[in-house]
Protein backbone atom coordinates (compact mmCIF):
# COMPACT_ATOMS: atom_id res chain seq x y z
CA UNK A 1 0.00 0.00 0.00
CA UNK A 2 2.88 2.31 0.86
CA UNK A 3 4.49 1.78 -2.54
CA UNK A 4 1.24 2.58 -4.34
CA UNK A 5 0.93 5.76 -2.27
CA UNK A 6 4.49 6.77 -3.15
CA UNK A 7 3.97 5.89 -6.79
CA UNK A 8 0.93 8.16 -6.95
CA UNK A 9 2.88 11.09 -5.58
CA UNK A 10 5.92 10.57 -7.80
CA UNK A 11 3.60 10.11 -10.81
CA UNK A 12 2.07 13.50 -10.04
CA UNK A 13 5.41 15.25 -9.78
CA UNK A 14 6.90 13.17 -12.58
CA UNK A 15 4.75 14.98 -15.10
CA UNK A 16 4.65 18.61 -16.06
CA UNK A 17 0.89 18.71 -15.49
CA UNK A 18 1.43 18.21 -11.76
CA UNK A 19 3.57 21.31 -11.40
CA UNK A 20 1.36 23.23 -13.79
CA UNK A 21 -1.75 22.56 -11.70
CA UNK A 22 -0.03 23.59 -8.46
CA UNK A 23 1.53 26.71 -9.95
CA UNK A 24 -1.76 27.79 -11.54
CA UNK A 25 -3.52 27.24 -8.24
CA UNK A 26 -1.08 29.44 -6.37
CA UNK A 27 -1.11 32.12 -9.08
CA UNK A 28 -4.91 32.25 -9.10
CA UNK A 29 -5.06 32.39 -5.33
CA UNK A 30 -2.28 34.98 -5.16
CA UNK A 31 -4.08 37.19 -7.66
CA UNK A 32 -7.34 36.94 -5.76
CA UNK A 33 -5.86 37.57 -2.34
CA UNK A 34 -3.28 40.23 -3.14
CA UNK A 35 -3.97 41.83 -6.51
CA UNK A 36 -7.62 41.94 -7.65
CA UNK A 37 -9.00 45.13 -6.10
CA UNK A 38 -12.43 43.81 -5.08
CA UNK A 39 -10.93 40.93 -3.10
CA UNK A 40 -7.43 42.12 -2.18
CA UNK A 41 -6.65 41.99 1.51
CA UNK A 42 -4.33 44.97 1.07
CA UNK A 43 -7.29 47.20 0.26
CA UNK A 44 -9.45 45.66 2.97
CA UNK A 45 -8.05 47.63 5.83
CA UNK A 46 -8.13 44.81 8.36
CA UNK A 47 -5.33 42.34 8.98
CA UNK A 48 -7.21 39.17 8.16
CA UNK A 49 -7.44 36.68 5.31
CA UNK A 50 -11.19 36.63 4.84
CA UNK A 51 -10.86 36.64 1.06
CA UNK A 52 -8.45 33.69 1.05
CA UNK A 53 -10.99 31.57 2.86
CA UNK A 54 -13.93 32.83 0.86
CA UNK A 55 -12.42 32.25 -2.57
CA UNK A 56 -10.24 29.15 -2.16
CA UNK A 57 -13.24 26.75 -2.35
CA UNK A 58 -14.05 28.23 -5.77
CA UNK A 59 -10.52 27.50 -6.94
CA UNK A 60 -10.64 24.07 -5.28
CA UNK A 61 -13.72 23.18 -7.34
CA UNK A 62 -11.46 23.20 -10.37
CA UNK A 63 -8.08 22.39 -8.87
CA UNK A 64 -8.93 19.20 -7.01
CA UNK A 65 -10.75 17.41 -9.84
CA UNK A 66 -7.74 18.35 -11.99
CA UNK A 67 -5.43 16.61 -9.54
CA UNK A 68 -7.67 13.60 -9.01
CA UNK A 69 -8.93 13.01 -12.55
CA UNK A 70 -6.12 10.70 -13.62
CA UNK A 71 -6.00 8.72 -10.39
CA UNK A 72 -8.25 5.82 -11.40
CA UNK A 73 -9.36 6.81 -14.92
CA UNK A 74 -5.82 6.58 -16.28
CA UNK A 75 -5.25 3.14 -14.74
CA UNK A 76 -8.36 1.90 -16.47
CA UNK A 77 -7.46 3.47 -19.82
CA UNK A 78 -3.89 2.14 -19.80
CA UNK A 79 -4.96 -1.30 -18.60
CA UNK A 80 -2.66 -1.09 -15.58
CA UNK A 81 -5.78 -1.44 -13.45
CA UNK A 82 -5.50 -5.15 -14.22
CA UNK A 83 -2.05 -5.19 -12.57
CA UNK A 84 -3.42 -3.52 -9.45
CA UNK A 85 -6.53 -5.61 -9.18
CA UNK A 86 -4.67 -8.91 -9.58
CA UNK A 87 -2.10 -7.87 -6.96
CA UNK A 88 -2.54 -8.79 -3.29
CA UNK A 89 -3.82 -5.25 -2.57
CA UNK A 90 -7.52 -5.13 -1.73
CA UNK A 91 -9.79 -2.56 -3.36
CA UNK A 92 -10.00 -0.71 -0.05
CA UNK A 93 -6.21 -0.51 0.17
CA UNK A 94 -5.95 0.72 -3.41
CA UNK A 95 -8.59 3.41 -2.89
CA UNK A 96 -7.05 4.47 0.44
CA UNK A 97 -3.53 4.68 -0.99
CA UNK A 98 -4.78 6.80 -3.87
CA UNK A 99 -6.85 8.97 -1.56
CA UNK A 100 -4.01 9.57 0.90
CA UNK A 101 -1.76 10.57 -1.99
CA UNK A 102 -4.41 13.09 -3.10
CA UNK A 103 -4.62 14.44 0.44
CA UNK A 104 -0.88 15.02 0.53
CA UNK A 105 -1.11 16.90 -2.77
CA UNK A 106 -3.97 19.06 -1.51
CA UNK A 107 -1.98 19.73 1.64
CA UNK A 108 1.09 20.69 -0.38
CA UNK A 109 -1.01 23.03 -2.52
CA UNK A 110 -2.39 24.69 0.57
CA UNK A 111 0.90 24.87 2.48
CA UNK A 112 2.21 28.08 0.85
CA UNK A 113 -0.89 29.94 2.05
CA UNK A 114 0.57 29.71 5.55
CA UNK A 115 3.04 32.28 4.22
CA UNK A 116 0.08 34.59 3.60
CA UNK A 117 -0.74 34.49 7.29
CA UNK A 118 2.82 35.43 8.13
CA UNK A 119 2.78 38.36 5.67
CA UNK A 120 -0.54 39.61 7.03
CA UNK A 121 0.75 39.30 10.58
CA UNK A 122 3.69 41.53 9.65
CA UNK A 123 1.37 44.02 7.95
CA UNK A 124 -0.87 44.28 10.99
CA UNK A 125 -0.78 47.24 13.24
CA UNK A 126 0.97 46.68 15.60
CA UNK A 127 2.94 43.95 13.64
CA UNK A 128 2.00 40.42 14.65
CA UNK A 129 -1.57 41.40 15.37
CA UNK A 130 -3.58 38.61 13.75
CA UNK A 131 -6.29 36.35 15.07
CA UNK A 132 -4.24 33.14 15.07
CA UNK A 133 -7.04 30.91 16.34
CA UNK A 134 -9.50 32.08 13.70
CA UNK A 135 -6.88 31.65 11.02
CA UNK A 136 -6.08 28.06 11.93
CA UNK A 137 -9.74 27.21 12.37
CA UNK A 138 -10.43 28.47 8.88
CA UNK A 139 -7.34 26.82 7.52
CA UNK A 140 -8.43 23.50 8.96
CA UNK A 141 -11.85 24.06 7.40
CA UNK A 142 -10.20 24.67 4.06
CA UNK A 143 -8.16 21.50 4.41
CA UNK A 144 -11.31 19.54 5.19
CA UNK A 145 -13.12 20.98 2.18
CA UNK A 146 -10.09 20.01 0.11
CA UNK A 147 -10.20 16.51 1.59
CA UNK A 148 -13.91 16.20 0.79
CA UNK A 149 -13.42 17.41 -2.77
CA UNK A 150 -10.56 14.90 -3.13
CA UNK A 151 -12.91 12.05 -2.19
CA UNK A 152 -15.50 13.37 -4.67
CA UNK A 153 -12.80 13.70 -7.34
CA UNK A 154 -11.57 10.16 -6.72
CA UNK A 155 -15.12 8.88 -7.07
CA UNK A 156 -15.62 10.69 -10.40
CA UNK A 157 -12.31 9.26 -11.58
CA UNK A 158 -13.60 5.76 -10.84
CA UNK A 159 -16.66 6.29 -13.04
CA UNK A 160 -14.88 6.55 -16.37
CA UNK A 161 -11.69 5.69 -18.18
CA UNK A 162 -11.36 9.18 -19.66
CA UNK A 163 -9.60 11.84 -17.65
CA UNK A 164 -11.53 14.72 -19.20
CA UNK A 165 -14.86 13.14 -18.35
CA UNK A 166 -13.61 12.48 -14.82
CA UNK A 167 -12.59 16.14 -14.52
CA UNK A 168 -15.91 17.51 -15.75
CA UNK A 169 -17.87 15.13 -13.51
CA UNK A 170 -15.66 16.04 -10.56
CA UNK A 171 -16.14 19.78 -11.06
CA UNK A 172 -19.87 19.30 -11.42
CA UNK A 173 -20.21 17.15 -8.29
CA UNK A 174 -18.06 19.51 -6.21
CA UNK A 175 -20.08 22.44 -7.49
CA UNK A 176 -23.41 20.82 -6.64
CA UNK A 177 -22.25 19.73 -3.19
CA UNK A 178 -20.69 23.06 -2.34
CA UNK A 179 -22.96 25.66 -3.94
CA UNK A 180 -25.89 23.67 -5.29
CA UNK A 181 -27.54 22.74 -2.02
CA UNK A 182 -27.23 26.26 -0.65
CA UNK A 183 -28.89 27.62 -3.76
CA UNK A 184 -31.55 24.93 -3.55
CA UNK A 185 -32.19 25.78 0.09
CA UNK A 186 -33.14 29.29 -1.01
CA UNK A 187 -35.78 27.86 -3.35
CA UNK A 188 -37.54 25.26 -1.22
CA UNK A 189 -40.14 26.31 1.32
CA UNK A 190 -39.75 26.63 5.09
CA UNK A 191 -38.80 23.54 7.05
CA UNK A 192 -37.23 21.79 4.08
CA UNK A 193 -34.77 24.58 3.56
CA UNK A 194 -33.01 23.76 6.81
CA UNK A 195 -32.40 20.14 5.84
CA UNK A 196 -31.28 20.97 2.33
CA UNK A 197 -28.93 23.56 3.74
CA UNK A 198 -27.52 20.94 6.10
CA UNK A 199 -26.40 18.92 3.06
CA UNK A 200 -24.43 21.82 1.67
CA UNK A 201 -20.67 21.76 2.09
CA UNK A 202 -20.45 25.54 2.06
CA UNK A 203 -22.81 25.75 5.03
CA UNK A 204 -20.52 23.56 7.15
CA UNK A 205 -17.41 25.23 5.80
CA UNK A 206 -18.64 28.72 6.65
CA UNK A 207 -19.46 27.50 10.09
CA UNK A 208 -15.91 26.13 10.48
CA UNK A 209 -14.23 29.23 9.11
CA UNK A 210 -15.78 31.38 11.81
CA UNK A 211 -13.00 29.83 13.82
CA UNK A 212 -15.36 27.73 15.89
CA UNK A 213 -14.56 24.07 15.36
CA UNK A 214 -17.92 22.44 15.86
CA UNK A 215 -17.75 18.66 15.96
CA UNK A 216 -20.99 18.43 13.96
CA UNK A 217 -19.34 20.17 10.99
CA UNK A 218 -16.22 18.06 11.29
CA UNK A 219 -18.24 14.86 11.44
CA UNK A 220 -20.38 15.92 8.52
CA UNK A 221 -17.32 16.45 6.33
CA UNK A 222 -15.67 13.22 7.55
CA UNK A 223 -18.96 11.46 6.80
CA UNK A 224 -18.99 12.86 3.26
CA UNK A 225 -15.44 11.63 2.72
CA UNK A 226 -16.37 8.21 4.02
CA UNK A 227 -19.45 8.02 1.78
CA UNK A 228 -17.54 8.98 -1.36
CA UNK A 229 -14.65 6.61 -0.65
CA UNK A 230 -17.21 3.88 0.00
CA UNK A 231 -18.95 4.65 -3.29
CA UNK A 232 -15.58 4.49 -5.05
CA UNK A 233 -14.84 1.03 -3.64
CA UNK A 234 -18.34 -0.11 -4.51
CA UNK A 235 -18.03 1.23 -8.03
CA UNK A 236 -14.70 -0.57 -8.52
CA UNK A 237 -16.19 -3.76 -7.17
CA UNK A 238 -19.11 -3.89 -9.60
CA UNK A 239 -17.26 -2.26 -12.50
Amino acid sequence: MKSLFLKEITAFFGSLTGYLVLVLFLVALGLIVWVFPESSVLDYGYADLESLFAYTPYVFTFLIPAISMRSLAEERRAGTWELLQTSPLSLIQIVLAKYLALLVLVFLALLPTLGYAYSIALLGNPPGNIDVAAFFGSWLGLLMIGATFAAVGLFSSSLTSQQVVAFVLGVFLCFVLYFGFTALAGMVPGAWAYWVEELSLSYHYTSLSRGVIDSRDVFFLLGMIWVFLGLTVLRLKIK
Partner: protein
Amino acid sequence: MSLQVAQLSKVYGSQKALDQVSFSASPGRILGFLGPNGAGKSTTMKIITGFLAADSGSVTVLGEDALAHPKRVSAQIGYLPENNPLYLDTYVREFLAFSGGIYGMKSADIRRRTEELIRKTGLQGEQHKKIGQLSKGYRQRVGLARALLHNPALVILDEPTTGLDPNQLVEIRNLILEIAEDKTLIFSTHIMQEVEAVCQDVVIINQGKILSAGSLADLKSTSSQSELILETEEMLELDWFAGIGTASFGSQGQQEVLLTVSDPAEARRTILQVVSQRQLNLIRLNQQEKTLETRFREITQSL
Protein backbone atom coordinates in the same frame (compact mmCIF):
# COMPACT_ATOMS: atom_id res chain seq x y z
CA MET B 1 -1.56 -30.15 -9.41
CA SER B 2 -0.87 -26.53 -8.74
CA LEU B 3 -3.77 -25.29 -10.81
CA GLN B 4 -7.11 -26.97 -11.22
CA VAL B 5 -9.92 -25.41 -13.21
CA ALA B 6 -13.24 -27.22 -13.08
CA GLN B 7 -16.50 -26.58 -14.94
CA LEU B 8 -15.80 -22.90 -15.32
CA SER B 9 -18.55 -20.97 -17.07
CA LYS B 10 -18.92 -17.31 -17.90
CA VAL B 11 -21.62 -15.54 -19.84
CA TYR B 12 -21.27 -12.09 -21.37
CA GLY B 13 -24.78 -10.89 -22.07
CA SER B 14 -26.21 -13.58 -24.32
CA GLN B 15 -22.82 -14.88 -25.41
CA LYS B 16 -21.32 -17.87 -23.65
CA ALA B 17 -17.66 -16.92 -23.24
CA LEU B 18 -16.77 -20.06 -21.31
CA ASP B 19 -18.73 -23.26 -21.22
CA GLN B 20 -17.77 -25.85 -18.61
CA VAL B 21 -14.04 -25.32 -18.97
CA SER B 22 -11.92 -27.84 -17.07
CA PHE B 23 -8.21 -28.50 -17.14
CA SER B 24 -5.25 -28.67 -14.81
CA ALA B 25 -1.58 -27.78 -14.82
CA SER B 26 1.29 -29.25 -12.86
CA PRO B 27 4.64 -27.87 -11.69
CA GLY B 28 7.69 -27.98 -13.95
CA ARG B 29 5.59 -28.26 -17.07
CA ILE B 30 4.60 -25.62 -19.57
CA LEU B 31 0.99 -25.63 -20.60
CA GLY B 32 0.05 -24.04 -23.90
CA PHE B 33 -3.42 -22.58 -23.98
CA LEU B 34 -4.25 -22.67 -27.62
CA GLY B 35 -7.21 -21.31 -29.50
CA PRO B 36 -8.26 -18.89 -32.20
CA ASN B 37 -8.93 -15.27 -31.31
CA GLY B 38 -12.00 -14.83 -29.15
CA ALA B 39 -11.97 -18.45 -28.02
CA GLY B 40 -12.03 -17.61 -24.31
CA LYS B 41 -8.32 -17.83 -23.51
CA SER B 42 -8.03 -14.40 -21.97
CA THR B 43 -11.33 -14.73 -20.13
CA THR B 44 -10.13 -17.97 -18.50
CA MET B 45 -6.86 -16.35 -17.47
CA LYS B 46 -8.57 -13.26 -16.12
CA ILE B 47 -10.80 -15.46 -13.98
CA ILE B 48 -7.87 -17.48 -12.63
CA THR B 49 -6.05 -14.28 -11.65
CA GLY B 50 -9.14 -12.83 -10.00
CA PHE B 51 -9.66 -9.98 -12.43
CA LEU B 52 -13.03 -11.29 -13.57
CA ALA B 53 -15.67 -13.18 -11.66
CA ALA B 54 -16.92 -16.52 -12.97
CA ASP B 55 -20.59 -17.41 -13.20
CA SER B 56 -20.03 -20.97 -12.05
CA GLY B 57 -17.27 -23.51 -11.60
CA SER B 58 -14.16 -23.55 -9.47
CA VAL B 59 -10.51 -22.59 -9.67
CA THR B 60 -8.02 -24.10 -7.23
CA VAL B 61 -4.55 -22.61 -7.01
CA LEU B 62 -2.10 -24.51 -4.79
CA GLY B 63 -4.99 -26.02 -2.88
CA GLU B 64 -6.75 -22.69 -2.23
CA ASP B 65 -10.10 -21.76 -3.67
CA ALA B 66 -9.08 -18.88 -5.92
CA LEU B 67 -12.60 -17.72 -6.72
CA ALA B 68 -13.61 -17.35 -3.08
CA HIS B 69 -10.32 -15.85 -1.85
CA PRO B 70 -8.58 -14.23 -4.82
CA LYS B 71 -6.32 -12.11 -2.61
CA ARG B 72 -5.00 -15.14 -0.74
CA VAL B 73 -3.58 -16.69 -3.87
CA SER B 74 -2.66 -13.54 -5.80
CA ALA B 75 0.83 -13.40 -4.27
CA GLN B 76 1.44 -16.91 -5.67
CA ILE B 77 0.45 -15.90 -9.19
CA GLY B 78 2.62 -14.06 -11.67
CA TYR B 79 0.41 -12.61 -14.36
CA LEU B 80 1.30 -10.93 -17.61
CA PRO B 81 -1.97 -9.57 -19.02
CA GLU B 82 -2.74 -9.35 -22.71
CA ASN B 83 -1.24 -6.23 -24.32
CA ASN B 84 1.17 -5.96 -21.39
CA PRO B 85 -0.05 -2.82 -19.59
CA LEU B 86 2.78 -0.83 -17.95
CA TYR B 87 3.25 2.63 -16.45
CA LEU B 88 5.00 4.21 -19.41
CA ASP B 89 6.27 7.25 -17.52
CA THR B 90 8.15 5.28 -14.88
CA TYR B 91 11.71 3.98 -15.08
CA VAL B 92 12.31 0.27 -15.44
CA ARG B 93 13.83 -0.14 -11.98
CA GLU B 94 11.32 2.19 -10.37
CA PHE B 95 8.50 0.15 -11.85
CA LEU B 96 9.94 -3.14 -10.62
CA ALA B 97 10.47 -1.69 -7.13
CA PHE B 98 6.86 -0.49 -7.10
CA SER B 99 5.57 -3.90 -8.19
CA GLY B 100 7.64 -5.65 -5.54
CA GLY B 101 6.19 -3.24 -3.00
CA ILE B 102 2.58 -3.96 -3.80
CA TYR B 103 3.35 -7.66 -3.54
CA GLY B 104 4.60 -6.99 -0.02
CA MET B 105 8.26 -7.84 -0.71
CA LYS B 106 11.02 -6.57 1.54
CA SER B 107 13.26 -3.97 -0.06
CA ALA B 108 16.36 -6.19 0.16
CA ASP B 109 14.46 -8.94 -1.68
CA ILE B 110 13.24 -6.46 -4.25
CA ARG B 111 16.80 -5.33 -4.96
CA ARG B 112 18.10 -8.88 -5.23
CA ARG B 113 15.29 -10.09 -7.47
CA THR B 114 15.46 -6.95 -9.63
CA GLU B 115 19.16 -7.53 -10.33
CA GLU B 116 18.51 -11.18 -11.05
CA LEU B 117 15.61 -10.57 -13.41
CA ILE B 118 17.19 -7.65 -15.24
CA ARG B 119 20.06 -10.02 -16.01
CA LYS B 120 17.78 -12.93 -16.93
CA THR B 121 15.54 -10.90 -19.17
CA GLY B 122 18.45 -9.14 -20.84
CA LEU B 123 17.40 -5.67 -19.76
CA GLN B 124 20.87 -4.53 -18.64
CA GLY B 125 21.17 -2.03 -21.47
CA GLU B 126 17.72 -0.53 -20.87
CA GLN B 127 17.46 -0.62 -17.10
CA HIS B 128 17.89 3.14 -16.64
CA LYS B 129 15.39 4.14 -19.30
CA LYS B 130 11.75 5.05 -19.00
CA ILE B 131 9.43 2.23 -20.03
CA GLY B 132 7.80 4.51 -22.61
CA GLN B 133 11.13 4.75 -24.45
CA LEU B 134 11.50 0.98 -24.84
CA SER B 135 10.62 -1.04 -27.91
CA LYS B 136 7.84 -3.58 -27.78
CA GLY B 137 10.21 -6.50 -27.24
CA TYR B 138 11.87 -4.82 -24.28
CA ARG B 139 8.54 -3.78 -22.79
CA GLN B 140 7.54 -7.41 -22.98
CA ARG B 141 10.64 -8.29 -20.96
CA VAL B 142 9.78 -5.66 -18.38
CA GLY B 143 6.29 -7.17 -18.15
CA LEU B 144 7.78 -10.63 -17.73
CA ALA B 145 10.22 -9.41 -15.11
CA ARG B 146 7.33 -7.84 -13.21
CA ALA B 147 5.30 -11.05 -13.38
CA LEU B 148 8.23 -13.06 -12.00
CA LEU B 149 9.56 -10.59 -9.45
CA HIS B 150 7.73 -11.99 -6.42
CA ASN B 151 8.79 -15.51 -7.34
CA PRO B 152 5.30 -16.88 -7.94
CA ALA B 153 4.62 -20.62 -8.12
CA LEU B 154 2.10 -20.19 -10.93
CA VAL B 155 2.97 -18.02 -13.92
CA ILE B 156 0.23 -17.00 -16.33
CA LEU B 157 1.24 -15.28 -19.54
CA ASP B 158 -1.49 -14.03 -21.85
CA GLU B 159 -0.19 -13.98 -25.42
CA PRO B 160 3.37 -13.05 -24.43
CA THR B 161 4.72 -13.23 -27.96
CA THR B 162 2.20 -11.32 -30.09
CA GLY B 163 3.67 -8.47 -32.08
CA LEU B 164 7.30 -9.48 -31.60
CA ASP B 165 9.74 -9.84 -34.47
CA PRO B 166 11.23 -13.31 -35.15
CA ASN B 167 14.38 -12.68 -33.10
CA GLN B 168 12.51 -11.32 -30.11
CA LEU B 169 10.14 -14.26 -30.44
CA VAL B 170 12.96 -16.77 -30.05
CA GLU B 171 14.42 -14.85 -27.12
CA ILE B 172 11.11 -14.64 -25.26
CA ARG B 173 10.51 -18.35 -25.93
CA ASN B 174 13.90 -19.23 -24.49
CA LEU B 175 13.15 -17.06 -21.51
CA ILE B 176 9.86 -18.89 -20.98
CA LEU B 177 11.69 -22.23 -21.13
CA GLU B 178 14.24 -20.99 -18.62
CA ILE B 179 11.80 -19.67 -16.04
CA ALA B 180 9.52 -22.67 -16.24
CA GLU B 181 11.95 -25.05 -14.57
CA ASP B 182 10.47 -25.00 -11.10
CA LYS B 183 7.17 -23.27 -11.80
CA THR B 184 3.80 -24.05 -13.26
CA LEU B 185 3.60 -22.02 -16.40
CA ILE B 186 0.60 -21.38 -18.58
CA PHE B 187 0.69 -19.27 -21.64
CA SER B 188 -1.91 -18.58 -24.25
CA THR B 189 -1.33 -18.22 -27.93
CA HIS B 190 -3.10 -18.67 -31.22
CA ILE B 191 0.09 -19.80 -32.92
CA MET B 192 0.60 -23.52 -33.22
CA GLN B 193 4.37 -23.49 -33.75
CA GLU B 194 4.70 -21.68 -30.48
CA VAL B 195 3.15 -24.59 -28.65
CA GLU B 196 5.30 -27.12 -30.49
CA ALA B 197 8.39 -25.14 -29.58
CA VAL B 198 7.94 -24.81 -25.82
CA CYS B 199 5.04 -26.75 -24.33
CA GLN B 200 4.70 -30.14 -22.71
CA ASP B 201 0.94 -29.90 -22.30
CA VAL B 202 -1.68 -28.44 -24.59
CA VAL B 203 -5.22 -27.30 -23.96
CA ILE B 204 -7.17 -26.41 -27.08
CA ILE B 205 -10.15 -24.15 -26.62
CA ASN B 206 -12.65 -22.78 -29.09
CA GLN B 207 -15.85 -20.82 -28.57
CA GLY B 208 -15.55 -21.27 -24.85
CA LYS B 209 -15.31 -25.05 -24.95
CA ILE B 210 -12.28 -27.21 -24.23
CA LEU B 211 -11.77 -29.38 -27.29
CA SER B 212 -8.68 -31.25 -26.24
CA ALA B 213 -6.50 -31.34 -23.17
CA GLY B 214 -3.44 -33.48 -22.65
CA SER B 215 0.24 -33.76 -23.30
CA LEU B 216 1.73 -32.50 -26.54
CA ALA B 217 3.14 -35.97 -27.18
CA ASP B 218 -0.36 -37.48 -27.08
CA LEU B 219 -1.75 -34.85 -29.37
CA LYS B 220 1.13 -35.40 -31.76
CA SER B 221 0.77 -39.16 -31.81
CA THR B 222 -2.85 -38.85 -32.83
CA SER B 223 -1.87 -36.28 -35.37
CA SER B 224 1.25 -38.00 -36.73
CA GLN B 225 -0.94 -40.28 -38.77
CA SER B 226 -0.79 -39.92 -42.49
CA GLU B 227 -3.57 -40.05 -44.96
CA LEU B 228 -3.20 -42.01 -48.20
CA ILE B 229 -5.51 -41.44 -51.13
CA LEU B 230 -5.85 -44.18 -53.70
CA GLU B 231 -7.73 -43.68 -56.93
CA THR B 232 -8.28 -46.28 -59.58
CA GLU B 233 -10.41 -46.74 -62.68
CA GLU B 234 -12.15 -49.74 -61.18
CA MET B 235 -14.61 -49.82 -58.33
CA LEU B 236 -12.90 -50.53 -55.03
CA GLU B 237 -14.08 -52.37 -51.93
CA LEU B 238 -13.21 -51.30 -48.42
CA ASP B 239 -12.45 -54.75 -47.03
CA TRP B 240 -9.55 -55.15 -49.47
CA PHE B 241 -7.72 -52.65 -47.25
CA ALA B 242 -8.85 -54.06 -43.90
CA GLY B 243 -5.39 -54.78 -42.49
CA ILE B 244 -3.80 -51.49 -43.48
CA GLY B 245 -5.70 -48.81 -41.60
CA THR B 246 -9.07 -47.16 -41.38
CA ALA B 247 -10.51 -46.86 -44.86
CA SER B 248 -13.35 -44.83 -46.29
CA PHE B 249 -14.56 -43.79 -49.71
CA GLY B 250 -13.47 -40.40 -50.92
CA SER B 251 -15.19 -37.69 -52.91
CA GLN B 252 -14.90 -39.67 -56.19
CA GLY B 253 -17.21 -42.39 -54.88
CA GLN B 254 -16.11 -46.00 -54.97
CA GLN B 255 -13.16 -45.28 -57.21
CA GLU B 256 -11.36 -43.43 -54.43
CA VAL B 257 -10.37 -44.68 -50.99
CA LEU B 258 -8.99 -42.65 -48.12
CA LEU B 259 -6.78 -44.54 -45.71
CA THR B 260 -5.58 -43.21 -42.37
CA VAL B 261 -2.45 -45.10 -41.40
CA SER B 262 0.32 -44.81 -38.85
CA ASP B 263 3.12 -46.31 -40.96
CA PRO B 264 2.77 -44.85 -44.46
CA ALA B 265 5.80 -46.64 -45.98
CA GLU B 266 4.49 -50.08 -45.09
CA ALA B 267 0.98 -49.10 -46.11
CA ARG B 268 2.05 -47.93 -49.55
CA ARG B 269 3.78 -51.26 -50.19
CA THR B 270 0.70 -53.19 -49.18
CA ILE B 271 -1.58 -51.01 -51.26
CA LEU B 272 0.56 -51.55 -54.36
CA GLN B 273 0.42 -55.30 -53.72
CA VAL B 274 -3.36 -55.09 -53.62
CA VAL B 275 -3.34 -53.08 -56.84
CA SER B 276 -1.16 -55.59 -58.68
CA GLN B 277 -2.94 -58.65 -57.28
CA ARG B 278 -6.34 -57.37 -58.38
CA GLN B 279 -4.88 -55.96 -61.59
CA LEU B 280 -6.30 -52.54 -60.96
CA ASN B 281 -5.60 -49.55 -63.19
CA LEU B 282 -3.97 -47.03 -60.86
CA ILE B 283 -4.77 -43.35 -61.35
CA ARG B 284 -3.02 -41.97 -58.30
CA LEU B 285 -1.70 -42.74 -54.85
CA ASN B 286 -1.16 -39.61 -52.77
CA GLN B 287 0.12 -39.13 -49.26
CA GLN B 288 -0.86 -36.24 -46.95
CA GLU B 289 0.96 -35.54 -43.72
CA LYS B 290 -1.22 -34.50 -40.80
CA THR B 291 0.74 -31.97 -38.83
CA LEU B 292 -0.25 -30.50 -35.51
CA GLU B 293 -1.42 -27.54 -37.52
CA THR B 294 -3.98 -29.53 -39.50
CA ARG B 295 -4.95 -31.32 -36.33
CA PHE B 296 -5.59 -27.95 -34.67
CA ARG B 297 -7.64 -26.82 -37.64
CA GLU B 298 -9.64 -30.04 -37.57
CA ILE B 299 -10.35 -29.71 -33.89
CA THR B 300 -11.28 -26.06 -33.92
CA GLN B 301 -13.38 -26.27 -37.05
CA SER B 302 -15.26 -29.41 -36.18
CA LEU B 303 -17.88 -27.43 -34.31
